[in-house]
Structure formats: structure tokens, C-alpha cells
């Protein structure tokens, strides 16, 4: 075991390999507040990468309803249960154990292997709120019920310290030095499925026809052309940003991911306590109890929620969020002036411009007309 620095935990931790951060790190930022679980991302991914025979159950990208949705079933509660209750020392340092440090004798990672039926219910718990069945989601009175649910967007986290890499006895999984994308070498994998047991996010999957593991490839053929991933560009809620994160000691506040993760700290990692330093970051939902969110996104949830609630008064942040989903191209810096947010490529050329506030138009009543000789009073919506 080597000692590696995990900035999300505020401390060094044990990992089977020495730290070797990539030149830049692929990242995705998800604004959970904007998701309606339409699964456009899921279908974009599925129809691009996993429609082959043997991949029937595979969803490299999925959206699940929290707290009762899982794909595969129970993926997060199972590993939390295995790890047991752990502690943070304030907001800064995780004093509990990671899945590497808690690995039992003879194993490199504390993990569990989903059964085949666990992969068979990707929509389990869909739209189920907390609370009992005698409550209803139609709540005429205020204050509203304390029931809640929200949608969690999931791809491979392309972790800095991947558990799949740690567990593979053949070193068949690797992290690309140029962008930190984690890939399964399709010529080297021998199908032991150790990665399926080790990955706490359960984002490696077994191809039933080729008998080897496969996983989210971060749409690297698109990235190599300067384009954002399929799940990002298909998102109708414009809640995703494909970008690159600098190493924690090289933070550049002009870069969007660095700004969101390290400067404003509005985007938080998923289950950072597991110790993988995941590289997908979430703007937490503003309506969910802090206790639950803290378990899922670590300390700093309250600050992130507060930041998000105030985004309307923060043009720099608002402009950045408005640029999500506004272009297929990967952009590297942005600015906001005269009510317009502009994104720029690496050469400083403008990629896209988005107004902070869309112009609105009021349709005059004169649009009303006749239908079948009868006068229609009101607005027409179908012509």
C-alpha cells in the first residue's frame, strides 16, 4: 500500500498504487436541481455505446430517484452498511476508513458483488418520495409535507484512485495520463469481475457475450475532438458540464470546473468518504435534508445549497450555470458582461454566448381567432 493524497478527505490515505495524477482530469458537473429524470442522457449513452448483444442490462449512464432508487439495486446503501458508521472531523478531515483501508484480509478493497437480478431493475424506486403511503404528493396546505425525493445522475466517476484499478489482479484497467479517463483494456481483461465487486459505484459491468468487463469511456472519442459527452449534450435540462479539473494544487479560478469545485465549492463529490476521489461533482438538491445530503456528498452541503440559492445574485456563477448545455463544444473559460455569459475555447475564441435572462414576449389577445366559425376567446396554443 502506498500513501496518496486525497484532497476530498483532507488527508493522506492508503492505496495499492502510488499517486500519479493525470495532466488534466476529465470531470462532469451535475446540477441535480434541474433533472427531471427524462433519461435522455441514458438513451443517448445506450444508443451510442451499449446496444450490442451481451450489453442488454448495461447502463453506463443512469438516472435514479433518491433515496429509494438504485442501479444496481442497493449499490450505495450496501457499501455504506459494509463500511459502517464513520466520522468527519468538522468539514475538513475525514477520520473514518476508506474502502481501501477497511479491506478485509486477502482483499484489496472492501466491496460486494451485485447479483444478476440487481442489474435488472434500473427504475426501481422511480419517483418514490420519502414518507408513508397515506401521505400524498398533492399537498394543498402549507407548510408542505417533509416528503422529498430527487434525481441522481450517474456515470463512472473516473476516480483519481479507482477501486476497479486497485482490485484488478491483471492491471487490465488503467487511467489515461492525458485526461484521467478510466478504461478497461479490452485485450487484457480476463473477466474475473473483481472490478464489479470493488467499485462502490458499481460502474463496471460484465459483457455477457465477450465475457470481459466494460465501463463508461467518458465518450473519449468525442473529447478528443473537443466535444462534450453524449449524456451531456443530450440533456434537455442542461444540467451537465463536461470539462477538466486541475490538480488540487494547480487550481485556476478561470476554469469552470475549478471554479465550481475548488473556488465556490458548490459542486461536491459523490460519497467522498469511500476514498476514491471521484471526479463527477454534484450541485446538491436544495430541498433535501442536510443529514442525508451530508452522507451522500460529504460536509459542505449547507454551504453549497446556500451558494446555489444565492446564484441569482451572483452573475459570475449564474453565467457559468447558464452556459451548461449551451454548446456541444468543450469550453475552457468564461466571463459575464452586460447580462451575457460567454464561453471561450483554449485560444480565447468565443464558443457561445447566452443571456442571463432570456427576453420574454407577451402574446397579444388579438392572436385569438375563430375555430370552425365559432369565436375563440383566449390564446391559441396549437397553431
Amino acid at each position: 500500500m502506498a500513501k496518496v493524497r486525497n484532497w476530498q478527505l483532507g488527508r493522506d490515505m492508503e492505496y495499492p498504487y502510488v499517486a500519479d495524477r493525470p495532466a488534466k482530469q476529465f470531470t462532469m458537473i451535475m446540477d441535480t436541481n434541474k433533472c427531471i429524470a427524462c433519461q435522455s442522457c441514458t438513451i443517448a449513452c445506450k444508443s451510442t455505446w451499449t446496444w450490442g448483444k451481451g450489453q442488454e442490462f448495461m447502463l453506463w449512464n443512469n438516472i435514479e430517484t433518491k433515496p429509494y432508487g438504485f442501479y444496481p439495486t442497493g449499490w450505495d446503501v450496501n457499501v455504506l452498511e459494509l463500511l459502517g458508521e464513520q466520522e468527519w472531523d468538522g468539514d475538513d478531515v475525514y477520520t473514518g476508513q476508506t474502502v481501501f483501508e477497511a479491506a478485509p484480509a486477502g482483499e484489496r478493497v472492501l466491496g460486494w458483488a451485485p447479483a444478476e437480478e440487481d442489474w435488472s431493475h434500473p427504475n426501481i424506486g422511480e419517483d418514490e418520495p420519502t414518507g408513508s403511503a397515506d401521505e400524498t404528493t398533492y399537498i394543498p396546505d402549507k407548510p408542505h409535507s417533509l416528503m422529498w425525493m430527487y434525481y441522481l445522475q450517474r456515470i463512472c466517476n473516473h476516480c483519481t484512485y479507482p477501486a476497479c484499478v486497485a482490485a484488478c489482479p491483471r492491471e487490465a484497467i488503467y487511467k489515461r495520463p492525458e485526461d484521467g479517463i478510466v478504461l478497461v483494456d479490452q485485450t487484457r481483461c480476463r473477466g474475473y469481475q473483481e472490478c464489479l465487486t470493488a467499485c462502490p459505484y458499481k460502474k463496471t459491468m460484465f459483457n455477457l457475450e465477450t465475457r470481459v468487463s466494460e465501463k463508461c469511456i467518458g465518450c473519449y472519442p468525442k473529447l478528443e475532438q473537443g466535444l462534450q459527452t453524449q449524456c451531456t449534450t443530450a440533456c434537455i435540462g442542461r444540467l451537465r458540464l463536461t470539462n477538466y479539473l486541475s490538480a488540487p494544487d494547480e487550481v485556476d479560478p478561470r476554469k469552470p470546473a475549478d471554479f465550481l469545485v475548488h473556488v465556490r465549492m458548490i459542486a461536491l463529490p459523490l460519497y467522498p468518504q469511500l476514498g476514491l476521489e471521484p471526479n463527477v461533482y454534484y450541485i446538491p438538491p436544495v430541498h433535501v435534508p442536510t443529514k442525508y445530503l451530508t452522507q451522500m456528498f460529504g460536509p459542505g452541503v449547507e454551504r453549497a445549497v446556500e451558494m446555489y440559492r444565492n446564484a441569482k445574485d451572483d452573475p459570475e456563477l449564474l453565467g457559468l450555470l447558464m452556459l451548461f448545455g449551451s454548446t456541444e463544444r468543450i469550453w475552457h473559460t468564461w466571463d459575464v458582461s452586460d447580462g451575457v455569459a460567454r464561453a471561450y475555447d483554449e485560444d480565447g475564441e468565443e464558443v457561445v454566448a447566452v443571456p442571463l435572462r432570456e427576453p420574454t414576449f407577451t402574446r397579444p389577445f388579438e392572436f385569438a381567432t375563430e375555430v370552425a366559425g365559432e369565436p375563440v376567446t383566449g390564446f391559441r396554443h396549437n397553431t
Partner: protein
Amino acid sequence: MAQAKITRKDALLYGGAAAGGFVVGGAAVTAVAVAVENEKAPVAGAPIVARYVDGDLPETDPGSDAWGDAQPTLVALAAQQIAQPFLEETLVTELDVRALHNGSSVALLLEWDDDSVDDLDGIRRYHDAVAVQLPTAPGAAPVLTMGAPGIPVHILQWRATWQRDIDSGGKTGVDQIYPEVIHDVMPDDVLPPRTAQLYWVAREAGNPLAQVRRTTPVEEVVAEGFGSVTHLPKQTASGHGVNEDGRWRVVVAVPSARTGVGAPLEPGSSWPAAFAVWLGSEENRGGRKHIANWQTLVLEAKA
């Protein structure tokens, strides 16, 4: 009986010792195989003597009468606990090994109890297998770590999945794992075969594990330590396995010349040989396997 296991300490302590049938991990062999009619009873710890046969070897026939002439050796198996990940529990303790050779090939018959035939790979679904490990160079046995850097070993692994690939003509995928499966449109339904093949990435990339059309159920690899198994570009091994009455009987055969791999298996020579067994139903795969310490394989001189 105490839990049998082979640890890293055992491997380092005993691995370099001269080959020769001591019982591994301190575990006593308490069970004695029952002699089958016209069969010799297996002897624990004895060298595996490959009888010389003048003529063809039963390379793909585990039921051949020719095997009756070979003396079986009982080889003790134990859970692999040298390298992570470990096999937690030993669930098969004995492998019966016998061998024949004809000067140009060596064949081994390997038998172990397993009443569950596991010959399809799926999610948490693993296959039965058996492997024979031989040094590439003559001399003392290397450490029991599947070779070491600069000290390659030659491994022959029979897999139940590969046997089914052959026996079924490659019908070993989704349709067999889930016989009631209903498919939507699949690439091979709508695309030319050459294009559809691209959707099986590992197969297209040439991964030998991902193929289903094959001619031998025995993979021939070299390794220089755990996790370093490398598929040989020229595959020369053959074999055949059947499971009858809860027992696998598997033949693994290889040309004696071992061209490009190692020193030839000459008549009259003696070699360390180690073994491994995987029980698919017990989620054995990769390093989670049952292993045996080095035994001695003696190739009888030509008559």
C-alpha cells in the same frame, strides 16, 4: 480437518525446494480415493509417472482405456492465499493426476469432484477450470507464484466455457445464459456481419477470452508472476473434459517440443509440475482458486 490453504510464506518457504510430493500447507490428506474397477488407486505424494505409449495419445479422450495403464497420483489442493485476492475456503481438496507420453506429446488426465457443471460465464457466474503449470527451464521448482520476473512458467488451462464453446459451436452467450430472453433489435440483426462484429469490442480487439469459435478448450500461456498471464501467439495444446457423476475428467495435452516456450519435455526427464482447480459454482476465478504445491512429473524413457 484443518482448513487447507497455501500462504505467501508457504510459497516462499517451500517453493524453491526440490520438487517432490510433500503435502502442502501442513494439511493432512484424510480422504482416500476409492479405486474404480480396473483402475489403480491414487497414491498421495507419489511422483506422477508419465508412461511411455507407442502410438497416439488419448489427447481428447478422458474415457480411453489407455489411461488405465497410468498410475494416478493424489494431489492435495488448498485455497490460494499467497496473492490477493484470496480464496477464502477450500472446497475441493484432491486432484487425481495421471500422465502418458509418446515422445512427441505429453497428456495428463486430471480428475476432481464437482457436482455442479459451470460452463457459462455471466454476472457472478463463473466457470470450472483446471490448470497445469510447468517451468520453462529444467532445474529446481521456481517459487509457487506463477513464475517471477525473468523466470517464466508455462501454463495449460482447460476451461469448461471453452469446452462448451467447442461442443456447442459457439452458442455460449446471452441466449444460453437466459434461454427465455427476448431481444430487441441487435447489431447482428440489422448490420452486415463485419460491422456487427464491431459491437463486441473485446472480441474484435482479439482478446482470446472473448472468442467463442475455437478449436481447443485448453489455453496455453506463459506467466512471470501473478497477474501476468500472457496468451501465447501460437496455441499448441489440446484436450477435452467431461463431467460424469459429479466428477470432472479432463485431458490436457501439449507437444513435448514446446517450441518457443521452453525446454522440451524429453523422455527420461523429470519436471516440477503444479496444478490449480477452479469451482465455478463457488465463484472461483482468477486468483480465487485451489492450488497444489509442486509435484514431480517423470517422463518414462522410451521402451
